[in-house]
């Protein structure tokens, strides 16, 4: 029984069957990659997990609790964090403030109206935020405006914001999309480092095979809304069905 269980999930947009009969189990403490060509339904599947979309059929359970019908912020409170394809950060604020917000929210997400205290005097929150920035090598940039950073740094910041909440499951939607090779490699190293340091399960949606094969422990290949195969990276590499779906190669 995995930490995340997806059973028979189907989703239809008008005439398009985006997902049908998706069965997927993500084991705890693994890096599970979901790959597939454009339009395979990867992002739709992810949106079904975080509460942005509600699947038409099937069930999604996280640690035995159903995620269906819960709002994104409620799912996050259960311990699921998400990194977006384009980094979603608080662009108008400084790096430090960006990380302090999830610290304030932490896990319970309860409404706290602390209008009396001052952000500048929140010692423990600051320490916590600085520790995570240290982890992702961004401490020297903590006073920078988030909007003025490079894409790679924005990605790093977004991960720091997710990690500071100590999620059990981290969902990554194409974490290296649009990055230069050097940035991609940095991101891979960062993700590996994160994985080493803590008990965390990662589900990665990715286009870049380089990233997938250098990180993933299990790979699920999605094609036309259904999982084609699920196996270890080594087996996937040579799998004829995958080559066909992915590279358009005719089966020999």
């Amino acid at each position: 029984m995995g930490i995340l269980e997806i059973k028979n999930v189907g989703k239809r947009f008008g005439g398009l069957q985006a997902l049908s009969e998706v069965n997927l189990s993500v084991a705890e403490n693994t890096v599970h990659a979901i790959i597939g060509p454009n339009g395979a339904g990867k992002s739709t599947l992810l949106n079904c997990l975080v509460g942005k979309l509600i699947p038409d059929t099937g069930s999604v359970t996280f640690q035995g609790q159903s995620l269906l019908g819960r709002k994104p912020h409620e799912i996050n409170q259960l311990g699921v964090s998400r990194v977006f394809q384009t980094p979603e950060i608080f662009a108008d604020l400084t790096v430090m403030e960006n990380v302090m917000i999830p610290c304030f929210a932490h896990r319970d997400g309860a409404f706290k109206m602390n209008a009396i205290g001052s952000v500048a005097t929140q010692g423990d929150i600051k320490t916590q935020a600085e520790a995570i920035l240290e982890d992702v090598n961004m401490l020297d940039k903590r006073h920078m405006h988030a909007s003025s950073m490079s894409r790679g740094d924005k990605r790093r910041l977004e991960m720091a914001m997710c990690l500071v909440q100590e999620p059990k499951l981290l969902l990554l939607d194409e974490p290296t999309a649009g990055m230069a090779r050097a940035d991609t490699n940095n991101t891979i190293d960062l993700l590996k480092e994160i994985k080493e340091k803590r008990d965390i399960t990662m589900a990665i949606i990715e286009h870049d095979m380089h990233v997938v094969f250098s990180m993933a422990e299990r790979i699920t290949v999605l094609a036309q809304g259904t999982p084609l195969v699920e196996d270890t990276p080594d087996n996937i590499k040579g799998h004829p069905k995958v080559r066909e779906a992915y590279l358009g190669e005719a089966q020999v």
Partner: protein
Amino acid sequence: MLGLSAKDTRLFLIVIAMVAFAPFLMNPFPTDSAMAQFNAGYPDLMQRFVIFGIFAIGFNILFGLTGYLSFGHAAFLGVGSYAAMWVFKLLGMNVLPALALSIVLSGLFAVVIGYVSLRRSGIYFSILTLAFAMMSYALAYSVLAADMDGPDQQGMLQKGLTGGETGLQLTLSDPRVLGQSTTAEGNIPVPNLFGIEMRDATELVLGNWAFTFSAGYYIAGVIMLIAFYISIRIFRSPFGLMLQAIKTNQTRLNYTGLNSRPYTLAAFVISGMYAGLAGGLMVAMDPLAGPERMFWTASGEVVLMTILGGVGTLIGPVLGAGAIKYMENILSKINKDTLYEWFSFMPDGLEGLLVTMVYPFVGKGWHLTLGIIFMLVVIFLPGGLVEGGQRIRGLFGRKKKTETDTPDGAKSPAE
């Protein structure tokens, strides 16, 4: 000081000084000079500066921090005014209970309107608030003004709750259980703060200058300072940080496990209470509340004030409120005769031409000037008057700036 950073303390002290010395600062021209009409140091106008300052400070907590543009804030102004009037009519003429009820009632009103309107964001939120404000206006104008006790009966409900288009006025027959219905001289009593009447004023004549110190202005001024102080604290608090996060990226906030709704509602209610306080102060200075106070133009005015001064800055809304009220009261007083007087040194033909050219922009046409200034500010100074101030300071004190460019200075929507 008072839990503020050094920079905020400096700003707060400057505002305190400005409020305290406004009767001097606003009266730079001798009373008998030609420029005397540009003096704004008379109590009525100064009171309006600080009251609309409070209104704009509150509006800025919602619009500046969360980015939710309410187009119906005047509704709270009106609710505050009517609430204070009813305290004056039923309880007594002390302004404190009146203001307290203004704040509470407009706060409750804001809970209801906010709860419904905040289900949507962006333009839909603005339209919803506008609709609510116009409904409130219609209620005040006709529905709640319907005769409840019959037309000729002597009684407080004679003209309904709001008094309709003539507005709610004090009468000699109001009960005022804690005060007196009529003064010894047979007049309607005046709003006061423990005996200090709002219209008490002393005049100080120094040479050609005359300065008026009015009790009402200073009471309103102190209340504005308190309101300003609270707004600084909110801006710098974790709560304020959350509100800024809502403005920048609500998606990320949701995926951080936070429901933004309680935060936006809290901000909405706080800014509604500020508006109610401003409305209460307006009737404390001049005990008459009319429905036009809730009209959409009044809501639009506070939006203009905030944008003109600088959205999301601490002092901007106050500056914007001052600038607009100054123009409204000073420019609109200039008439054709004044213009002829100004240009009298010119040859006849030219004089006439200049007067014809300038006249559309003053007097009743002051809105035209306001419009032009507003457009110039929005195009060239998107950060409002505050940005203008910062640029001027940047020109003169570039050296000083590098010195104070501390981590906190990197992001300074503050002044």
